[in-house]
């Protein structure tokens, strides 16, 4: 006759599981904080790097060694168990610019990196003054008309649509372009960015000594200086990458000013200006005409 588990046996199991809990809980807790054994059986407080690439198919290198590749499902890569020190990250992708950064890993902290990769040969679609409508008649292209008007306006006009309007001239900062709690503007050929959210939520590039007790954050940072800066706007879909025009082309750079600050040309050529519509469509204008840029 089978009897239920005896009280003694159950008590034994209970004690075993309580002991397991007592033993495992500090192990799991310290593991989750990043404590690891080194090869010499020393305990080390590790840190990590988180790299988020908006592009799939990007290869992420850590100190020259391929670590991971992004794909359709995974764009963010967490590299854990890193000894606190300085690391070189490089992100590459076929037919794109590469991105490099030197980052410092601190114990129990995760250092973030948000690379941007520009297409080496962005496709340009001509926006023509006229189009052929469904009846076969040649008619004025309203998009072209709207863009011509838009290019006549300063880039910081408050309403960024194809409808034309005039913006009153005021201080450069007041005409700054906002996106998700960050606004950017240019003044004296210098690009500035300001964090408009709560100071405790400041992105790391507004702060110094990130992850340390001495962390200090500023609300305004200098992003880039050049002999001449024309139009300034955010890169489509990003609030940490800035597009700006110079006398020899359109460039992108990042708010992340950890060395090296990546500055890459998007389109080279003289007398090029650009406008961004609805935050995700980019148009350029040169002496030959107006084009939509396929990023």
């Amino acid at each position, binding site marked *: 006759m*089978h009897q239920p588990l005896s009280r003694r046996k*159950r008590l034994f199991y209970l004690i075993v599981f309580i002991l397991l809990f007592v033993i495992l809980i500090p192990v799991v807790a310290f593991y*989750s904080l990043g404590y690891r054994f080194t090869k010499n059986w020393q305990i080390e407080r590790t840190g990590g790097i988180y790299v988020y690439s908006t592009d799939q198919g990007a290869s992420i290198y850590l100190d020259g060694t391929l670590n991971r590749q992004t794909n359709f499902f995974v764009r963010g890569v967490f590299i854990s168990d890193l000894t606190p020190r300085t690391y070189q990250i490089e992100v590459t992708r076929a037919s794109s610019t590469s991105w490099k950064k030197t980052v410092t890993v601190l114990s129990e902290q*995760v250092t973030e990196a948000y690379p941007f990769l520009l297409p080496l040969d962005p496709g340009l679609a001509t926006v023509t003054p006229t189009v052929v409508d469904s009846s076969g008649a040649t008619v004025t292209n309203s998009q072209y008309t709207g863009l011509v008007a838009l290019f006549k306006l300063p880039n910081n006009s408050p309403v960024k649509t194809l409808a034309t309007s005039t913006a009153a001239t005021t201080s450069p900062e007041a005409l700054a372009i906002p996106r998700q709690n960050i606004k950017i503007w240019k003044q004296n050929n210098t690009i500035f960015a300001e964090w408009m959210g709560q100071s405790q939520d400041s992105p790391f590039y507004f702060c110094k000594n990130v992850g340390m007790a001495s962390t200090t954050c500023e609300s305004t940072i200098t992003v880039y200086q050049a002999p001449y800066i024309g139009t300034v706007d955010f890169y489509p879909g990003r609030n940490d990458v800035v597009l700006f025009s110079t006398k020899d082309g359109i460039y992108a750079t990042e708010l992340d000013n950890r060395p090296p600050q990546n500055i890459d040309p998007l389109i080279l050529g003289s007398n090029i200006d650009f406008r961004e519509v609805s935050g995700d469509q980019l148009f350029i204008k040169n002496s030959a005409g107006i084009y939509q840029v396929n990023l």
Partner: protein
Amino acid sequence: MNQTETPYYFHVGRASDLKGSDRALYRFLEMIPGLLAWITLLGTVVISYFTPTFAAFFIIAFDLYWLLKTMYLSIHLRENWRRTRYNMKLDWRKMVEPLKYDHIYHLVLLPFYDESLDLLDQSISSILNADYDPKKILMVLATEERAGEKAVRTAATLKEKYADHFGGFLITKHPKNIEGEMPGKGSNITYAAKEARKSLLDAKNIPYEDVIVSALDSDTSMYRSYFLCLTWHFLTAPDRYHVSYQPVPLYNNNIWQAPAFSRVVASSGTFWQMIQQERPEKLATFSSHSIPFKTLHEIGYWQKNMVSEDSRIFWNAFMFYDGKYRVVPLSYPVSMDANLAVSFWQTLKNIYKQQRRWAWGSENLPYILFNFIKNPRIKFTKKVRVMFVQLEGYWSLSTNPLLIFLLGWLPLILGGHRFNETVLSYNLPYITRDLMVLAMTGLILSAIIAISFLPPMPPEYRRRHKLFMVAQWIFVPFTIVVFGALPGLDAQTRLMIGKYMGFWVTPKHQGEKKA
């Protein structure tokens, strides 16, 4: 104590049954399960916002606790599985024969409301086909006046078919609208048991000491040796009149027809009961159960003013005998219906409602605590142990799955930018996931056990149906939240705010047999 000496609060159903400070105290006790649940859930939100690091450690510790608890309970489940299978194969007649048992009668109460003739016929037929002298079985069909003439006709048809086979056959009709009663199983079977006492036991001069009452759900099908197994346990149990007898509830009657969600929820209920069978001191009566008639008569039958009469009868006896009352686990099954309605969505709704009704068993907690406060004859250590087991049980039901499967992400969402830059925040989802995956490997055992209890697959079903019986266990993270925690929280919240539930009769539908 005898029945006439029971205190005024002995059959209290809810706070409004009491007066003055007793009412206020009972009302507060009713609020405890809901308060504990909501404090836990809202507390997790608050600490995730203000101290995300502490919240993250709490969640990791909780995940580890849950993993170890799952493993600990799995040992009990596996042990009871072995024992139940052993008992199902055991020759119980051989076990009983050395004992004198000819004098033992089984009074079977089969209450019903508007269930079909076929369903009741199946239940009575299984009782008749059980390996026990049918002349020692007294059958009571307990109908409800509010169910109308159809129920009366159903009962009459069944009486005509079966009356001659049993030692007694009684149809009772529980009157409607009795002051102080709640319509439901408790009031019906109490009326039926009292009628049976007069019409069957007293009329035939059967001593109450020789009668075991089995209060069944209307869809209960007996396995062949149930009465022999019950009789053996009754005759060999020390202090047998201070004991209830609990079988393992399987939901096999329509298991092949029921949808996967219903099967998983039903099997999970079975597994919980099997685990409790290995921890008899934590076991209370549930659903179909048995109790000596002498005891039942002494304690005043099932309560008529509340929903969870199946478990409350145990607590009534526990309080009546000053804590000297227990449940003997039979580790022998009875089979009932899994939830199945005419449509898939209706089945889901019915599962939810049934789970909420079972979770409404938290109405026992204020009863237990109130009696503990009032009854100094129960040992203090016993009070503390019971109180902890009950509080932990109801708290776990309504909070644990939510903490495990939903709230583990809260520190990441609410913890703010600084917390989200720590290794801890990045590791939290991975560690939670890994611990849960480890815990979920226990589902393999669940699948094996569930399959071992399956009745033969109907010939019209194909092999893939058997595969579904294994694959269905991936739904556990969903069912444990939607059909575990949420109805539990729903019931406890209703009790907390005084929105009392009534009895809900689970619709019985056995599905169409495939051509």
